[in-house]
């Protein structure tokens, strides 16, 4: 099917572009590692405090790293006219947009997933919470890319949309932050986390369905 071909072509192209711009793409990951490693230095030698803070520190850093990487989602396509060509494509824009969001997550979310356990050990997060940390990251980092996509699509046409983007997106990120870091916190104290994980799964699934359409509509408005 041509539309599936187009979908894969978008993902392939964006991954290739990310590879060619790897220095730029590594920024959010670098930021994530930097923020988490600075905390022990600032807090001092208080292992208990660090262990208690670990879920929150890791999640806040992951969220800020995601926010930092959002603008790159549509910016270069908007600037060089590729976005216009995507709008003119006979394929549904929402499917193409979903491809772009997935590629964005593969480039910015997946690396966080790989580094986070290492940083969690570094902060002394109890071993029993490690699996939950991973699960929340797997569920919630794609959610951050999806929610952010609507905000970026709305602000990409503005010359200075950076501040507005954070204002639009941060309130929507807060529930994700609460449930994700809450789950890791509970797991660290040995409590069940099914409720939090279920809510995150539900949020991810609804975002997968609900995000592409308004994002495509917002992009059409921004190109105007």
């Amino acid at each position: 099917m041509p539309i599936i071909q187009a979908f894969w072509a978008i993902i392939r192209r964006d991954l290739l572009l990310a590879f060619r711009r790897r220095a730029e793409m590594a920024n959010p990951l670098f930021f994530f590692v930097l923020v988490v490693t600075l905390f022990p230095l600032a807090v001092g030698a208080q292992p208990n405090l660090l262990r208690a803070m670990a879920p929150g520190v890791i999640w806040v850093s992951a969220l800020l790293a995601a926010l930092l990487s959002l603008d790159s989602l549509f910016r270069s396509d908007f600037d060089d006219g590729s976005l216009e060509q995507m709008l003119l494509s006979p394929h549904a824009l929402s499917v193409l947009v979903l491809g772009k969001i997935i590629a964005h997550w593969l480039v910015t979310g997946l690396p966080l997933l790989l580094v986070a356990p290492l940083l969690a050990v570094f902060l002394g997060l109890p071993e029993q919470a490690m699996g939950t940390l991973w699960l929340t990251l797997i569920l919630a980092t794609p959610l951050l890319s999806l929610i952010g996509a609507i905000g970026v699509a709305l602000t990409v046409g503005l010359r200075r949309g950076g501040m507005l983007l954070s204002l639009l997106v941060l309130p929507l990120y807060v529930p994700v932050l609460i449930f994700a870091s809450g789950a890791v916190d509970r797991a660290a104290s040995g409590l069940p986390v099914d409720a939090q994980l279920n809510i995150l799964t539900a949020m991810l699934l609804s975002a997968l369905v609900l995000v592409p359409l308004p994002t495509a509509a917002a992009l059409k408005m921004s190109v105007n």
Partner: protein
Amino acid sequence: MENSQHATLQVSELSCFRDERLLFSALDFSVNAGQVLLLEGANGSGKTSLLRILCGFREADAGQIYWCGNKISESSYFQDMAYVGHADGTKKELTVLENLNFALALGAPGKYSIEQALDKVMLAGFDDNPVHTLSAGQKRRLSLARLLITHNLLWILDEPFTSLDRQGIKLIESLIAAHIEQGGMAVLTSHHDLSMADLNLQRIHLQACQ
């Protein structure tokens, strides 16, 4: 896909305002298969705005656009048209070939293969060059090569001759002429007068309204 013999682009009563300023109003024209429409007018007279309305990027403030008798949103318009604007629509980090392959994935295959198209725009042998190493004129020819590899009847070209040398301009004119001969149509803006005498050419002169 519409039969190219009967394809027409018809515009009726089109008006466009920009920042409270009237650019044009009650604009009527139609373009048939085998015709070229050249939009003329001073800077800021609304040529690009008109093209962007034809591409569906902007909503017209009044009026309708029809493709083969149907409103463009309800027809195969977006399968049958292609647009080359001020921005090239190519990725400078990707190679010529990667860019064209992606353009092909977004649309349907057209008359020429990528190899033939590169040959036609005199970029043969540049397949593996990243686009940022090309000159401005070569980039322009690359974005026009996109028209050749995808299926389309209507070309909408915004200043296709910018940054091209004399030879490049001749080349693009001959590509347009070949497209028209095969039953295609084109709408373009240009400050450069088309030098093709035997072309079925319409002109619309947009006057800047005060």
